[in-house]
């Protein structure tokens, strides 16, 4: 999936910069998210993910650039009623009951002309403890309340800052299922995470933020194509030390008798083809994980 044009993007961020005094938290970030797309925002702590989301939602005023959601301003009540947001550090009034918190939000949704039609279903699926005070809930249960609030009005744009944080594996999968359902219904989803398997599981495209800059952005498949892969081959005959020199994308190679190891960016097929004449007895390959690639990108940016 490639980047949508600005006029059909549900989220359209152009040249966004945000500074806090001398600290430049975001520097010229541009990204678009189309309806029915999940955009995974990757980055280490302090990379600027939450700042980007808070600019998108109008909590922070950009120092430079423009931010548009559903072709408008996310602070407009009409547009805001179509956005679901889950902050990374969810805080709700500790002394309020879950029921009171939900009632407040459903009333405001209804007043904005967008009733929380999916609330009952969500509360049941997420098994939200309604009768407890928010302050008495575990971290996982608090996160469920936040998810219910962000999802209950069937939003067209979902902004989720580390949504599975604190949840058990079963609930993590359930949350990702719900996000997939929202995507299938046409919602644009901007999801930040540093759990890369989560991005791999759900994101159509990912962007990597490092020190406030978007240093990589591509469909996940493209990024995976760019990822490095390792190969270990045992041969019948010892090849010459330069046997892999012709392989495109070769990063490193070591030939020790009949054992060959190599790291290649992109396809391994050329490497295997080069080694085939020496009689392949055993072959093992390993695609580097997205987090390794992410680490490489970060290292490259620093």
């Amino acid at each position, binding site marked *: 999936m490639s980047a949508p044009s600005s006029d059909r993007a549900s989220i359209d961020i152009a040249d966004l910069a945000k500074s806090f005094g001398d600290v430049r938290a975001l520097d010229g970030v541009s990204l678009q998210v189309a309806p029915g797309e999940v955009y995974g925002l990757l980055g280490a702590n302090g990379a600027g993910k*939450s700042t980007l989301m*808070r600019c998108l*939602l109008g*909590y*922070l*005023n950009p120092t430079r650039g423009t931010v548009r959601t559903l072709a408008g301003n996310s*602070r407009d*009540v*009409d547009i*805001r*009623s179509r*956005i*679901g*947001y889950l*902050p990374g*550090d*969810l*805080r*709700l*009034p500790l*002394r*309020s009951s879950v029921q*009171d918190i939900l009632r*407040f*939000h459903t*009333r*405001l*949704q209804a*007043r*904005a002309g*967008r009733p929380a039609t999916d609330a009952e279903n969500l509360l049941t699926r997420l098994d939200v403890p309604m009768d407890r005070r928010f302050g008495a809930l575990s971290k996982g249960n608090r996160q469920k309340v*936040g998810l219910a*609030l*962000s999802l209950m009005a069937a939003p067209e744009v979902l902004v989720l800052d580390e949504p599975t944080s604190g949840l058990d594996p079963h609930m993590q999968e359930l949350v990702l299922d719900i996000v997939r359902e929202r995507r299938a219904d046409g919602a644009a989803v901007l999801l930040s995470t540093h759990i890369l398997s989560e991005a791999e599981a759900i994101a159509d495209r990912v962007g990597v933020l490092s020190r406030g800059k978007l240093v990589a952005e591509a469909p996940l498949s493209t990024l995976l194509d760019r990822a490095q892969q390792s190969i270990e081959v045992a041969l019948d005959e010892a090849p010459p030390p330069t046997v892999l020199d012709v392989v495109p994308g070769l990063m490193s190679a070591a030939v020790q008798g009949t054992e060959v190891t190599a790291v290649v960016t992109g396809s391994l097929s050329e490497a295997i083809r080069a080694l085939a004449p020496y009689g392949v007895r055993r072959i093992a390959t390993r695609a580097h994980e997205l987090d390794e690639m992410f680490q490489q990108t970060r290292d490259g940016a620093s």
Partner: protein
Amino acid sequence: MTTLTVALSFVRDRRRSLLAWTLGIIALVLIMAVFYPSIRDTGADFDAYVESLPESVRESLGISGASIASPEGYLMSQMYSNIYPLVILILGISMGSWAIAGAEGEGTLEMTLAAPLRRVSLAWGRFVAMAAATLAITAISTAALAVIAAPLGLLDGLPWWGIWSAAFSMWALVMLYASAAFAIGAATGRRAWAIAGAAALIVIGFLGQMFASLAQPLEYLRTTSPWYWFLGSSPLTEPPGLVSFVLPAALALIITMAGVWRFDRRDLGA
């Protein structure tokens, strides 16, 4: 209507605390009232002591012109010039400073504003809740005072509406300082600054009007003190007027509008 939803939610979240404040203030008012007969019976001694005080101090304490043994003198000196407005001020400043800055510091404002709700609506909703809560507690405690005051002779010689007039003027004074706390908090997002700012204004206003009267050339400065607007207006015998009610209420609104304007435009804290 959105403002009303916000206001009701703000009050509902604090219902237990507000109930405790209400009961505490009622108890305070009643305790002060039941001491009146013993003060009245030893009125000559108190009056002699009061006469020995400088005029400016007597006015600051709300006992200028009336014997402390009289209902007006007792109510003004023992209730309306100190502890009664002070406790409601503490409540008002607590609510005002928490409304935006406290919630922001606690981190709950972000999720509240994730709902389809304009910042301006949120701010005015919470301001309305603060105003309504302080007004209700003032009215309830005044009603309690009205019930017990008559048999104690504490309303003798006063118009029937006297304590209600004083209550409304006192509430306007409370709203002025609570609005300052609200506005400073809304503009800065810092609750400590909101409380410190309002407290400083209270002290400056109270001590300023007292000390200004001691120095003849500075006496005109007394008229700038909200405390003087309240205490100097004979609130138990005069209905709420331009100076004792309209002026502080209007200033409270202007200060609040300035705070809300700034809140609507600034970055929210994380």
